[in-house]
């Protein structure tokens, strides 16, 4: 009964925690500029994420090590320093972007400039991390995040043509602005397959003491939860395509993106969009900061754990506090959260090969996963997608930046 409860809770919170600043902004822009045409990018990214999350849970359940700890042991600090520093830097940028997104959500409700909300939101995130255990962070925020299902409801009410949606699940060549199209495809993958999610999930499996016998729970939660989460992300794209594209609105701010809810929710459009954006972004911010503590502690061998008394894990607490403070500094400097999000998620794809490829090696090493190694199809698929994504990102990011 407990396993079924864990399963349902895991799936529900995966759905609630799926959408955040990156997925909302990339899907909204993709829908407004290219209609349904980039739905395939969400589908592929969701499949990749589900596979990787399932693997990271399996690694933890079998080896009793998180992803960061296993990479340090298997490849040494000489290799790990590359993904570690890159991930920490991008996570800090993403954290600033998520807090900025949550601050804009409050601005939508209050009218007060978003910069004023950055420090209070950072303080609230820190207080949650300081005072609450893993369950509150994972399940509490995930359950609140179910408000993001409003994107799916909105898309459903707008009655999109089913055949167009199905046709868009196959990659196609754009009729205009191919660099922008490729950049958005890369950004969608980066926003969905955030490397922090992999270590966060493997650390969470250790926090919850997942046993080898519960691997089936891990598998079902990962695939079902992430696939439904992907549907929420598709809901953003479809709503944006049906509402914003006909009016030629390209959302270059979250305030403009909120307009996509108007035809369905009318006077409740802005409050509902603000709630979905705010909870999604704030939840991701708390997870990002917590993961920064996890990664630092696991790489250097410090005591860690959200469920541990803070006095027993002072360096872990100092790590998430420091990363949060750095992100707040970036936020206070006034970088536009939407632009920061798009840049961070695109950069994520560049570092992805350094994160995913060693992880795939670990998932085929019997010293870590015993008999639970990954199959050849999954290995090849993930390796190819990661390398293609990384190469594509290296080409399109400079083109996009140079093109303004």
């Amino acid at each position: 009964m407990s396993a079924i409860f864990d399963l349902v809770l895991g799936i529900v919170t995966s759905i609630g925690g799926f959408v955040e600043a990156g997925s909302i902004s990339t899907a909204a822009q993709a829908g407004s500029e290219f209609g349904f045409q980039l739905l395939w990018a969400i589908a592929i990214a969701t499949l990749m994420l589900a596979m990787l999350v399932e693997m990271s849970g399996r690694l933890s359940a079998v080896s009793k090590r998180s992803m960061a700890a296993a990479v340090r042991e298997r490849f040494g600090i000489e290799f790990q320093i590359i993904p570690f520093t890159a991930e920490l830097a991008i996570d800090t940028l993403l954290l600033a972007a998520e807090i900025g997104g949550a601050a804009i959500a409050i601005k939508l409700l209050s009218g007060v400039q978003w910069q004023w909300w950055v420090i209070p939101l950072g303080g609230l995130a820190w207080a949650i991390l300081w005072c609450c255990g893993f369950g509150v962070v994972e399940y509490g925020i995930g359950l609140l995040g179910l408000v993001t299902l409003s994107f799916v409801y909105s898309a459903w009410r707008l009655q999109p043509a089913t055949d167009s949606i199905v046709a868009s699940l196959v990659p196609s060549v754009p009729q205009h602005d191919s660099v922008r199209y490729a950049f958005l495809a890369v950004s969608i993958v980066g926003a969905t397959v955030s490397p922090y999610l992999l270590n966060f999930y493997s650390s969470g499996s250790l926090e919850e003491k997942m046993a080898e016998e519960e691997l089936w729970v891990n598998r079902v939660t990962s695939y079902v939860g992430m696939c439904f989460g992907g549907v929420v992300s598709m809901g953003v794209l479809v709503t944006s395509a049906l509402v914003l594209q006909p009016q030629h609105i390209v959302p270059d701010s979250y305030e403009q993106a909120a307009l996509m809810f108007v035809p369905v929710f009318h006077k409740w459009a802005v409050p509902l969009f603000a709630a979905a954006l705010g909870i999604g972004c704030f939840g991701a911010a708390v997870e990002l900061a917590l993961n920064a503590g996890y990664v630092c502690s696991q790489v250097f061998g410090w005591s860690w754990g959200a469920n541990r008394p803070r006095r027993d894990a002072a360096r872990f607490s100092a790590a998430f506090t420091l990363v949060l403070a750095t992100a707040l500094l970036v936020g206070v400097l006034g970088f536009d959260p939407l632009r920061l999000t798009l840049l961070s998620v695109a950069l994520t794809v560049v570092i992805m090969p350094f994160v995913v490829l060693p992880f795939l090696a670990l998932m085929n090493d019997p010293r870590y996963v015993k008999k639970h190694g990954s199959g050849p199809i999954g290995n090849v698929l993930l390796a190819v997608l990661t390398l293609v994504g990384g190469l594509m990102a290296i080409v399109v990011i400079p083109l996009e930046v140079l093109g303004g």
Partner: protein
Amino acid sequence: MDVMRDLADKLVLDRNGREIGRVDRVLVNMSTSPPRVVGFEVGPAVLATRLSPLLGRWVAGLERALGIECDRPLRIDVAEIIDRAPHVRVDRLFSDTPARLVEDKIQQALPRLRGAA
């Protein structure tokens, strides 16, 4: 002993299972034949030296500036190893290691809220 597999970069636990750090440098006596592992070291400066000697000197300087250089790096003799798998467990107590000093200093700096109790 397969040094790379059994020792390098492994998590080091004290005799009660508390994390001390990771094996940042393996000490090998090259004067014997064959060369013999005599112990290992734990500490950020040692770890940084593996990446670059200059970085190692910077980190050692930072340790001195923060007043946490005492007894660093932590050197553990191979005879003190109790267990090597899944983690390296040694016959030491966390409270007797330099890591304790760092944890104490951080605890003094961070506020004592409910979570810290």
